[in-house]
């Protein structure tokens, strides 16, 4: 997200909540003499705890960081090439402001010289921080970035966990085609995320025989999309596609219900896979909505264990898309450190050169891009966000006609 608003640019928000938690977890295990002696592994990151990017960051990303440190420390510490060392998280709030985010990482890597970094939230922030991390030689496995341009930058230390716009949009178009969709209407947020997905979707659509009957951009955080949705409703498309952020996802859904716009397929992006979406619109209200999602507890036994641990530790459910990718990135990082220690070049080579077992399945990278798992589509069915496309990844069959909004 990029809304830099002078009104929020204040001295707010620096917190050390996570450090305190990590230390508390460390203190709880003082009984083990080996840990008391081992120097902590210092892991730094900046993430949104205030400002517009907070909902996404606090759903998909930071809870995983906290839980990772908690779990590792409870087990005696992070395995660094056979030596267990406690994790010390050094974190701060980037106030959803990219400049603050970049400066925080500059400090973490340049002057604090932390051992490892964890990524910030969102395509925009990753776009800004990735080149910097690359320059300092810190491997960065980003679970919340979708951008072809990030792949094209060919940064050797940067890895994208999520399936990128191209495979995601191809999976969607594929699914539409297999289910007889002829016309599509698209809205997209006018930020990097929306623009790139819209572009990829247009390319995927070009050779499919489907027509785009409407395409409009909007600023994230809009309060009213009904004028656009009404004109889309008049064109009566088979499918609606929104490349949206969480608040937009809710707004577009609510206003579609309001004006009685109920296409055969209703697709929205970030936030659709969030438990908050279901809580706000009620489980019956979200029935049949499709969106960006890639896993749920049925995906693998590891995914189920992760889901349960997340609910227990963070007192809330993970989302069914980037949360899983975030945990998978931490699994890869943990394995890398166990194997090669804290030599960051060696970690980078380990990540780039191997296939990794994760809760999402086998992940491997071609350049920065995860080519191990395919693009997917999810759908709300009876209170769970099921993976419905492609069939090889599906946890439930696709419902091909969205029921009326309830």
């Amino acid at each position: 997200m990029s809304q830099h608003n002078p009104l929020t640019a204040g001295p707010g928000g620096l917190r050390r909540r996570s450090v305190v938690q990590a230390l508390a977890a460390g203190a709880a295990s003082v009984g083990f003499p080996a840990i008391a002696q081992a120097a902590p592994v210092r892991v730094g990151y900046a993430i949104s705890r205030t400002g517009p990017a907070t909902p996404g960051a606090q759903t998909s990303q930071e809870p995983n960081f906290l839980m990772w440190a908690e779990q590792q420390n409870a087990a005696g510490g992070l395995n660094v090439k056979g030596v267990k060392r406690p994790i010390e998280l050094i974190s701060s709030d980037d106030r959803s402001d990219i400049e603050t985010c970049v400066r925080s990482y500059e400090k973490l890597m340049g002057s604090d010289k932390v051992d490892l970094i964890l990524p910030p939230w969102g395509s925009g922030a990753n776009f800004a921080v990735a080149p910097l991390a690359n320059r300092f030689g810190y491997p960065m496995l980003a679970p919340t970035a979708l951008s072809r341009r990030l792949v094209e930058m060919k940064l050797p230390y940067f890895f994208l966990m999520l399936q990128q716009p191209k495979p995601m949009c191809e999976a969607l178009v594929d699914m539409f085609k297999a289910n007889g969709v002829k016309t599509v209407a698209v809205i997209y947020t006018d930020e990097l995320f929306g623009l790139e997905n819209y572009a990829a979707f247009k390319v995927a659509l070009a050779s499919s025989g489907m027509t785009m009957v409407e395409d409009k951009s909007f600023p994230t955080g809009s309060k009213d999309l009904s004028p656009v949705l009404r004109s889309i409703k008049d064109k009566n498309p088979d499918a609606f596609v929104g490349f949206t952020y969480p608040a937009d996802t809710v707004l577009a859904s609510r206003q579609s219900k309001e004006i009685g716009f109920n296409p055969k397929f209703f697709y929205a992006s970030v936030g659709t896979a969030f438990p908050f979406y279901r809580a706000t619109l009620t489980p019956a209200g979200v029935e049949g909505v499709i969106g960006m999602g890639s896993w749920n507890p049925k995906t693998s036994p590891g995914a189920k264990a992760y889901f349960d641990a997340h609910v227990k530790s963070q007192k809330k459910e993970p989302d069914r898309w980037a949360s899983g990718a975030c945990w998978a990135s931490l699994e890869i990082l943990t394995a890398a450190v166990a194997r090669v220690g804290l030599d960051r070049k060696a970690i980078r080579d380990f990540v780039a050169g191997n296939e990794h077992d994760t809760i999402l399945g086998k992940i491997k990278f071609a350049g920065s891009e995860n080519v191990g798992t395919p693009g997917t589509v999810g759908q709300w069915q009876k209170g769970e966000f099921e993976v419905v496309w492609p069939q090889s990844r599906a946890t439930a069959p696709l419902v091909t006609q969205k029921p009326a909004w309830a």
Partner: protein
Amino acid sequence: MSLGSWLELIASGLITGGVYALVGLGLNLQYGLMRILNIAHGEFLMVGAFLTWMATTSFGVSPLLMVPVSFAVLMAVGMLVHRLTFRRLAATSPNLDIFEARGLMVAFGLMFLVQNFADAVWGGDLRGYDYLTEPVHIGGSQFAANKLLLLALSLSFSIALIVMLRLTLLGKGVRALMQSPTGAQLVGIDTARLHPLMFGVGLGLSGVAGSLLSMAYTVSPSMGEPYTVTALIVITLGGFGNMGGALAGGLALGVIEALGMHFTNPSLKALLSYAVFIGVLLWKPNGLFNKRT
């Protein structure tokens, strides 16, 4: 475009505009009467929204019941804030201009304070609940019931405030203060009582707006800020201190935005709002509805 579509479009503009007007009126009361440019105005709207969300989802209280409760709570908060900050500021500032500048700084501080308070208490997550989202058919068009309620209540509160200012003795005192602070004090109008009361009413109205917004939109600690900016545009449109003007300005801005978004692109909404804002500042710097030029 059919007549029904036009009706829907304009009505959706009026619904948004109703909230703009309500927020604008509250700010206008503070700025027009006391020269307090309360940049934190939208933050109190956010508090009203969170209170309503919390009461509804945790205790099952009807959001409708929370509308007057939000008003009362925020009004009390407003009077307290006024007593703690602006009253002292008014006593120590040598003149009105310096008071205005200092008040702006205090309001900035309040903004961070309230935002971080909400963040600490409720967290940064998006929140929301389902209330009266069933569509209602009117003629050939349809609207969500909660949006119609939003429009009805925001208009009622706005009109009630305007009527109160016009018809009651209290209102007369307030209007006199707006026209000439010194003159009003000379004829015995008690500013020590009126100022905190009106500051409280202003915040109360923003609490009402927040309460209403939570019925239809998502709630988060950063939701208030855009409304502060919009409120500034609205009172500029209507003229500082002009209540009827703020109401008309708010509704007009809502409709302009809706039409603009329909015929161009939602991405251009901000451009449109600011173009109107700059246009009014250039051609009618005292507001569209002020007789003084």
